[in-house]
Structures are given as structure tokens and as C-alpha cells.
């Protein structure tokens, strides 16, 4: 390990990485000194790879920066980036930073997906970020016409070749424009929820990003003899991919191997083969990826694969299912996956990325808690055998008195977590839940709203002072997640915020709701989408509640359910697990008539969403509804109040 010298901006970090890594080998030249080989490797679909050392990455970025400066991109301005995983993403990313501007990574079009929805969302994000220019891959750019027309970035949408050309002869000589960048300047805008309805651009400073990368890097020395070697297929417009993988590799500097998300999704074995081939020690992914690998990787695809190098398999970005952890650990033990590798973590884009980590050197921990106490009283009462290594035990849990929850560990160095009473309700817009600056944290074992504090919190939502003020209070961030602390570790039980978290990505419910609400026979504007992790399930369950325009017989409700699922899938690409068709007026609302999503789910889980008789369009119904603990708790209270058991 080299000693860490203070590096206060990403640009300084790039400069340092470039001087502390071996230069790319030129023909015949011996490797210079004993500098480490550090940089980014890009794996193609045929598993061939190319490698860019940090000095090369910096040189290329400076050429782009010169072009951007000539175009008139000024420090502080935002630049949208739409690139697949590849060297060009980094040319654009570091090039934008090198001119003092702020990169805003956006996702490329979904393959074979509906472009209408894509244009609408992307235009919304470009506008919300106030991007002055959009840089795009040449192939993607030809498709972005409509997005650009809608969003009208003043400098349009350009390819890197176009930008470098605009730099003029003699400008692409590797000389970076002289700009002064300070640690508290913005360094990145990322989206917490990718929709037009509510695009929330999360603004992060150089200081915050470096603090996050440093916190992550501080974890390895006790575990790894050498600097970590990473593999990631995560999208670069996702915090776990960019902030979690690239920035720590930049800061050390170390070596990171990247493959495109589409390669992983189509052929999950490539992820494991790549880890094995490059002897990666660290590779993160969301829960769904571990599940996909368990189900889709075939033994014969792993000939010669050795996963014993994989010391840290981070699992975050969405709810972590104990069944998936156990299944993955057991399935790949044959290929040498260490038992301690799987590491559940927790974070959110508003905190740059990670907030808590479970211990790296021991198997993941689960706790077993009394189901009734958790659901009814919000109290985590451990049931015998607590705190042991998880058995997973998928299936057969529905009737057990205990519910198994995964620990997401302790706060990273420099971070604090506090659980406060979840009073007040954003759905009502009237009252705010108390922050740790205003109220006292709940004792261990009490479920409440999770607040975090630390050096990598966002500066705010760009251009949204009111939302920022509601979320960042007294130096604390309201995560909108529900959970409790036990033995100093955090356990999550549900969400208070209206967001769907599927396959590691956040979605706003409004897109699905709008699509369903437009189906003939549905009551316009009366649909609610929610997702949660049911007990024993491998991932979050997405359920759509739709009111019919008029009381409908079962056959009509079945038709409506199928149509709504189709419409929702067409609009968002998301597969709805269940559509529940309700009689007009069944969905709970606020006094001002707004639909209450959380309340809808709570009542659904408690069986008090009347009239009952949900039409189950797709499959799986009752058995899974015993979960969503925090939601159920709320519903039980509601029911008790209704029956006079509780004031």
C-alpha cells in the first residue's frame, strides 16, 4: 500500500493516478521502475480485452477537455453523457471534469425497448440537470434527436470526435485547459429516480465523492494483502458502478476490469469468468444479479473458473434477500467462492453510495425476529439462534414465528446512522418526521426511519431547494428507508418513500400508474404501484393496484388486470408480478385526494384493502402477503384503531 497523500479533487486524483501508475508499454521499452500496473480494462463480448493505463486515460481526457473549452463549456456547467461502457465514457467523463464542468451520466436506450418513453425520461433528466451540452456515442447520438429537441441543451448533442475536432488543430495536444477546481465544486450529478415525473438530480461535490472513495478504500488493507483488483459489469450511470468501482480504483490507483451490463444480463457467466481470469478480489452487484447468476449460469460455462480470489462480493443497491445470498454461496462454493465473500451493504445515491458495510472477513449475518412483534409493534425481538450465519432456508418460512432479516452491517468510517420515530408522513405533505437534530433516536431494536450522516452526503437536489430542505436536515439525510439497529448493525424492514427498487435501479411508480390508468375500463388516474421484498422471496415484488371505472364482474377484472400489466410493461419494460383490480373508490387517499401508496400496500398486506377478492392476473397471491413488515405494522395499527383496540 502506498501512503495516501491528500488529493482534494477528482482532477488531482487523476493526475496522481497518472504519475503513480506504469505508463502504457511502448514497443521495446522496459517497464519503468516498479510502478503498479493500474488502469481500466474493457472486456468485449468475445472476452478479448483492451487496457488503458491511467496516464493514457488522462491524456485522452485532456484532448476532450481542450475541445470542450473551445466549444465554450465553462466550469460548473453540466454536460450529459450517454455512452455504453467503454473507453469513450471515460474520455467524456474525465474530459468534462478537466474543463471544470460537471458530468451527468445518463443511461443509453434500452435494447429493443420503447424509445418514446426513453426520450421523455432522458429529456426530463437533461432538463433537470440543466445540461449545457450532451455528449454521446456516435451510434446512440443518431437516436437522440427527439431527446435533444425536447430538452434543447444550448450546445446540442455531439460525439467526442466532433468535440475534439472543434478543439482545432494544435489543441488536441494533450494540454489541459487551465481551470481552477475546488473541493466544494460539483463533480457529478446522478439521478436518484429516473423519471420525468420526479427527476431528482443528486448533486455531489469533489469532496463528497473522494470521501466516499476513501471510505471504501479504507476497508481493504485489513483483508487484502495487495491493492484490490476489481471487476464490474455495473452501468457507469449507476452509483455502484461509477462511484463504487471506478473512483476507488482511480484513488489508489489500481486496476479495474469493466464489462458492459448487457453482456452480464445476456450471459451472466461472463461476470464470473472475468473475475476468475483477472483474479479479481472485489466485485459488487445488486441482489438480482446474484439471483440471475444462480439461475442462468450453466456449469459447463465455468470450466476452469476459480473464484477463490473473490474475497469481497458486495451486495447492495436494492433489498438483500437471505435466500439469494445462501443460494449463491452454495451454488458457487464448488468453484472456490469463499464463504466469507458475500457482503451485504447499504447506501443510497444521496449519500454518494455506501453508508453501511457488513464485516468483510466473516460470512453474512442474519437475525431471526419475532414476526408478530415486528409487524404489530415495530419491535425487533430476537428469536433463538439469532445472529448466526444464515441458513437461507428459502420456503417454508411463512408459518414460522420468526422472520429472517439480513444485517447490512455497521456505518463506514466517518458515517453515523440513527433510527428515529417515523411520525409525520410525506404523503400528506403536512408534517415532516423528526430528524436526529430534533428528536431522540429510538433504542436498539425499535423500527423507525433511518437517517444517516457522513462526509459524502449530497450537496442537495440540483435546482430543488424545497426537496433538499425536506431531505437534508441539520446535517442528516433522511433515507426514507425503515429499519432498526441491533447489536450495532442495521437491518432494513421497508421503505417510507414512494419508490420502486427493482434490479438495483430506482423507478418512480408514476410511470406504471399512468400507463395502467389509461387502459380502457380502468378509472383514470386511479392506479398505485408498489414494490417490496416479501419474506422468503428472491427479489422485490411489483404489484399494481387499479380501480375499475365501474363495478366489474370477475371476467372483466381479469381482462383489465392483463391489459394493465401489458400497458405497464410496454411503458416501462418492467414485469408486474401481480395486478389487483379494485372497485371504484377503494384506494386510500389523502384529504387532498392524492393516492396513498404506502397505505395501499399496508392495507393489502393486512388484508384490509376492501373489497377483498383481489384478481390475481399473473400468479402467486396469498402466501407472499405476510411480509412488508413495516407496512403491515402500520396497517395493524389502523385496524386496531378502527376496531377500538387502540385510540
Amino acid at each position: 500500500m502506498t501512503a495516501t497523500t491528500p488529493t482534494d479533487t477528482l482532477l488531482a486524483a487523476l493526475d496522481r493516478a497518472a504519475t503513480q501508475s506504469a505508463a502504457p508499454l511502448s514497443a521495446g521499452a522496459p517497464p519503468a521502475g516498479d510502478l503498479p500496473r493500474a488502469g481500466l480494462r474493457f472486456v468485449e463480448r468475445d472476452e478479448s480485452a483492451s487496457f488503458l493505463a491511467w496516464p493514457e486515460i488522462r491524456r485522452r481526457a485532456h484532448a476532450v477537455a481542450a475541445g470542450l473549452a473551445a466549444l465554450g463549456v465553462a466550469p460548473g456547467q453540466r454536460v450529459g453523457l450517454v455512452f455504453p461502457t467503454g473507453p469513450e465514457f471515460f474520455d467524456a467523463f474525465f474530459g468534462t471534469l478537466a474543463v471544470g464542468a460537471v458530468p451527468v451520466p445518463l443511461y443509453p436506450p434500452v435494447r429493443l425497448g420503447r424509445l418514446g418513453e426513453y426520450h421523455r425520461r432522458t429529456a426530463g433528466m437533461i432538463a433537470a440537470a440543466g445540461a449545457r451540452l450532451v455528449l454521446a456515442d456516435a451510434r446512440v447520438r443518431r437516436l437522440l434527436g427527439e431527446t435533444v429537441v425536447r430538452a434543447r441543451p444550448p450546445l446540442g448533442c455531439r460525439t467526442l470526435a466532433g468535440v475534439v475536432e472543434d478543439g482545432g488543430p494544435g489543441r488536441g495536444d494533450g494540454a489541459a485547459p487551465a481551470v481552477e477546481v475546488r473541493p466544494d465544486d460539483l463533480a457529478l450529478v446522478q439521478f436518484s429516480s429516473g423519471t420525468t415525473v420526479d427527476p431528482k438530480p443528486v448533486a455531489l461535490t469533489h469532496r463528497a465523492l473522494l470521501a466516499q472513495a476513501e471510505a471504501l478504500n479504507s476497508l481493504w488493507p485489513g483483508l487484502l494483502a495487495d491493492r484490490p483488483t476489481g471487476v464490474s459489469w455495473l452501468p457507469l450511470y449507476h452509483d455502484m458502478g461509477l462511484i463504487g468501482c471506478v473512483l476507488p480504483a482511480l484513488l489508489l490507483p489500481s486496476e479495474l476490469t469493466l464489462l458492459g451490463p448487457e453482456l452480464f444480463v445476456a450471459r451472466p457467466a461472463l461476470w464470473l469468468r472475468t473475475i476468475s481470469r483477472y483474479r479479481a478480489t472485489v466485485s459488487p452487484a445488486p441482489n438480482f444479479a446474484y439471483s440471475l447468476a444462480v439461475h442462468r449460469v450453466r456449469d459447463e460455462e465455468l470450466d476452469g473458473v476459480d473464484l477463490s480470489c473473490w474475497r469481497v462480493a458486495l451486495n447492495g443497491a436494492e433489498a438483500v434477500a437471505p435466500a439469494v445470498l445462501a443460494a449463491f454461496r452454495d451454488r458457487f462454493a464448488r468453484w472456490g467462492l469463499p464463504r466469507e465473500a458475500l457482503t451485504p451493504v447499504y447506501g443510497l445515491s444521496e449519500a454518494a453510495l455506501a453508508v453501511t458495510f457488513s464485516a468483510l472477513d466473516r460470512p453474512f449475518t442474519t437475525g431471526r425476529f419475532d414476526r408478530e412483534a415486528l409487524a404489530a409493534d415495530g419491535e425487533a425481538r430476537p428469536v433463538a439462534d439469532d445472529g448466526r450465519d444464515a441458513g437461507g432456508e428459502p420456503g417454508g418460512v411463512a408459518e414460522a414465528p420468526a422472520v429472517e432479516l439480513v444485517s447490512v452491517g455497521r456505518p463506514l468510517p466517518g458515517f453515523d446512522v440513527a433510527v428515529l420515530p417515523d411520525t409525520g408522513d410525506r404523503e400528506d405533505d403536512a408534517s415532516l418526521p423528526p430528524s436526529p437534530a430534533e428528536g431522540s433516536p429510538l433504542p436498539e431494536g425499535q423500527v423507525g426511519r433511518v437517517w444517516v450522516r457522513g462526509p459524502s452526503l449530497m450537496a442537495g437536489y440540483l435546482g430543488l431547494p424545497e426537496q433538499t430542505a425536506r431531505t437534508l436536515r441539520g446535517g442528516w439525510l433522511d433515507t426514507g428507508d425503515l429499519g432498526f439497529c441491533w447489536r450495532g448493525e442495521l437491518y432494513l424492514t421497508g421503505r417510507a418513500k414512494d419508490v420502486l427498487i427493482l434490479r438495483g435501479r430506482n423507478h418512480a411508480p408514476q410511470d406504471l400508474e399512468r400507463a395502467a390508468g389509461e387502459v380502457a375500463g380502468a378509472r383514470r388516474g386511479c392506479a398505485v404501484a408498489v414494490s417490496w421484498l416479501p419474506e422468503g422471496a428472491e427479489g422485490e415484488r411489483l404489484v399494481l393496484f387499479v380501480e375499475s371505472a365501474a363495478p366489474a364482474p370477475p371476467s372483466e377484472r381479469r381482462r383489465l388486470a392483463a391489459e394493465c400489466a401489458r400497458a405497464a410493461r410496454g411503458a416501462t419494460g418492467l414485469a408486474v408480478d401481480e395486478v389487483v383490480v379494485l372497485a371504484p373508490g377503494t384506494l386510500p387517499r389523502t384529504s387532498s385526494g392524492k393516492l396513498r401508496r404506502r397505505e395501499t400496500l399496508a392495507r393489502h398486506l393486512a388484508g384490509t384493502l376492501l373489497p377483498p377478492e383481489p384478481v390475481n392476473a399473473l400468479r402467486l397471491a396469498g402466501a407472499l402477503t405476510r411480509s412488508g413488515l413495516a407496512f403491515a405494522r402500520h396497517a395493524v395499527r389502523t385496524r386496531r384503531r378502527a376496531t377500538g383496540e387502540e385510540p
Partner: protein
Amino acid sequence: MDHLAQAVERDEILAGIEAVAREHLGRVEPLTPELRLVEDLELDSIQLLTLAVEVENRFRVCLEPEDEAGIATVGDLAAAVAARLAEDQPAGAGSTGGPPWRRETAGPS
């Protein structure tokens, strides 16, 4: 290429897409050109992506974003593949030796 040859090729492509759907999406039903990917086959975004990547692997073509923008049905997908194949023919791209992803490459370069 005459009409007959085109028809034969179209059938082969359709059979290839069907094989991809069977192998990678677990779809056993026969695919006909008029079936819509989202509405009829009910593919979600991950399945669409898998279909696109594996069809490319199988036929060794690269679909461009603007090809994909116009694809709504199985027939559209087959036509896009046919167009790319026709483009690649003059370059003499053979199709032996198995899918490219099976090719092993050396370790760290």
C-alpha cells in the same frame, strides 16, 4: 438475391431467433413473424436485452440503434438481422467455428 433465396434465408433467421428464445428465454412456443415482442411475447426489458445480444451472437451481426428503433415484432427483428447479414456478405463473413463468445482469449494482455 432472388425471392426464393430471400424466403429461405428469412425462414432460417426465424428458426435461429426461435432457438435463441428457447435457449436463453425458456420460450418453447413457435415464433411467427407477426408476434409482438412486448405485447404478445410479454418480454420485459431484461429479456429484450438478452434477445438482442444473443441474436447478435448467433448471427454475428451488430444491430444498430436505428435498426432497433423500428423493431416491434419477431418479423421486424428477423428483417433487421437479414439486412445486416446482407451487408456483411460481401466481406465474406463465414459462420463456422461456433459463437464468438466461446473463443478463449489470452489472460491479462
